[in-house]
Every structure is written in structure tokens, then in C-alpha cells.
């Protein structure tokens, strides 16, 4: 800093403005990922959008208490997981009814697979495999599903998953192992 420069004292308004800018940047960066995780978990676009909104609303309210001990993404993911859990717990019956009504079918979900440079036969085979994985994921327990999706869809590290779920790394690994075994079994059983 140049000698003689006058340091302008930071007012509360300025601090709030900086915090708001930071939060806006966090929303812009992480919103698609949070939405994707919730969409993969619920298979319901409307519900995923609602929970994403709730997640960022809650994050905004508690933004001042975020101390940066974990990454913002991990912190947000933890909020999203808790919201999803609360939603499932509070409206168990309605949730299933709602999910059955609004959730897309397994076939429809697999239709989103990019064709890439595959032949028609390879595309069909790949879609069938995605359908089988989706079916296996649907049959997982809530915790196994969360861990599986964070690992294989969001490509999170085990330590990040542990922080987001509040589990130990060993427990995360165990859940992941069981989830992968079920997926493998689904893929193997269909042949």
C-alpha cells in the first residue's frame, strides 16, 4: 500500500454488500450442482427446484455463520441433504405419493444419455445399462443413495462426502461398497 494512503473504515453496509456479492457468486457457481444432486435423488424436477430454492434460502440466512471450515460446496450439500431428509421424514406418505405421480420413469431418465460416437446398437445397450443402474439406485437405502450419488454423479472425494453427510470416512466407504455391490448385482442379474 502506498505511503500516505488513507484507509477507509469499513462500515456495516459495506460489509453486507461484500457478503451479498460473495453469496451471489456462490449461488451462481454451485446452484446447478445442488440441483443436479437433488434431481438425481428425487427424480422429480419440481421437487428438486423447490428444495434447491430452500437450500439457498437457508444458506443465505446462515451465510454469516459460515466460517469456511469446509468448502462452500460441501456446506451447501450438507444443507441440501438435510432438507431432502426432512422432506422425506415429514411427508413420508405424501412424498411417495408425490414421487410416484411426478417422478419420471426409468426409461425416460435413460433417454438423456448423450449418444456420443456410438453405434445404434451400442447406444441401446448403454441406455439399458443406465436403466439398470437407475433401478438399482432407486432400490438403495436413503443413505446409500446419497453417498452413491455424491461419489459417482458429483464425483466428490470420500472426505467431502463424509463432511457433507456427517459420517466418518469408514462409514461412507462401507455404504458405498454396499451400494456398488447392489448396482453390480443388478447389472449382472439382467444378463
Amino acid at each position, binding site marked *: 500500500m502506498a505511503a500516505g494512503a488513507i484507509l477507509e473504515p469499513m462500515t456495516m453496509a459495506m460489509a453486507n454488500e461484500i457478503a451479498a456479492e460473495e453469496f451471489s457468486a456462490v449461488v451462481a457457481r454451485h446452484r446447478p450442482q445442488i440441483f443436479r444432486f437433488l434431481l438425481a435423488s428425487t427424480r422429480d*424436477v419440481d421437487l428438486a*427446484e423447490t428444495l434447491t430454492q430452500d437450500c439457498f434460502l437457508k444458506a443465505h440466512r446462515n451465510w454469516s455463520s459460515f466460517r469456511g471450515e469446509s468448502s462452500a460446496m460441501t456446506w451447501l450439500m450438507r444443507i441440501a441433504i438435510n432438507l431432502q431428509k426432512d422432506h422425506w421424514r415429514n411427508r413420508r406418505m405424501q412424498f411417495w405419493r408425490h414421487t410416484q405421480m411426478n417422478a419420471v420413469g426409468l426409461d425416460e431418465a*435413460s433417454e438423456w444419455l448423450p449418444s456420443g460416437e456410438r453405434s445404434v446398437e451400442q447406444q441401446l445397450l448403454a441406455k439399458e445399462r443406465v436403466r439398470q443402474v437407475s433401478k438399482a439406485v432407486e432400490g438403495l437405502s436413503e443413505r446409500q443413495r446419497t453417498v452413491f450419488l455424491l461419489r*459417482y454423479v458429483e464425483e466428490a472425494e470420500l472426505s467431502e462426502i463424509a463432511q457433507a453427510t456427517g459420517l466418518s470416512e469408514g462409514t461412507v466407504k462401507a455404504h458405498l461398497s454396499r451400494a456398488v455391490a447392489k448396482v453390480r448385482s443388478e447389472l449382472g442379474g439382467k444378463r
Partner: protein
Amino acid sequence: MIFKNKVDEVGNVTEELDEALRDFRLSVHAWSDAAFSRQRTAVAPVAPRQVWRLAVGWALGCVLVAGGASAGVWQHHQREMKNAAARVAEQQRLQEQLVAQQRSQQARQEDEDLLAKVDSDISREVPAAMEPLAQMMAEDENP
């Protein structure tokens, strides 16, 4: 490959499982991207003042509709009453006309009966001595 390593951490990996998980990830990403970028329709929240305006507008509208409807019903009722009164008056007039006709007919009948009785009485009062003369007059008139 990062993805393959991740599967390695939790157990044996087959190429098929690795590929299936990768396809699953691609599929979810594509689905999410499409859903995230779709058009959303947002309904603007209504301000309290607007709510009041809306409520007052609705209330006035309801009052106008109810007033219009009741005025129409009242007018219809009045017209029906007038029509009924006119029908009753017409019936009464016809009834009275009929009674008057009957009365005049009866009076005429009574007059005719009286005249006939007078004629009969007068003809009976001709003395018996004059009867041959009267008979002759009748024969002269009808030879």
C-alpha cells in the same frame, strides 16, 4: 482414469460396471442440464395493497352483479303482478257482462210472458154472447 480409480476404492471393478456408472453420470448430467435451463414461469408475488384492491374490486363486482340480478328479478315480479291483475280484471269484466246479459234476457222473457198472459186474459174476457159474432168475423176474414 479418475472414475475407474473411484470404483477401485470400494471393490473389484469390471469394465462393464465402470462404463455403466460413467453412462449413468452422463445421463444424469444431461438430464439436469436440460431441466435446469428450461423455461420457468414465475408468478410475481402480489403486494398487500394490490390484494386489498383486488378484494374491493371483487366485492364491488359481486355487489353490482347481485344488484343487477335482483333488479331484474324484481322487475320481472312486478310485471307478473301487473299481468295477473289485468287477467283477473278481464275475467271479472267478462263475468259481469255475462251476468248482465243473463239478467236482460230474463227481463225480456218476463215481459214476453206478461204480455202473453195479458193477451190470454183479455181474450178470455170476451163475453159468451159475443162469441158467434166473433166467429163470423173470423170466417169473413178467411173465406
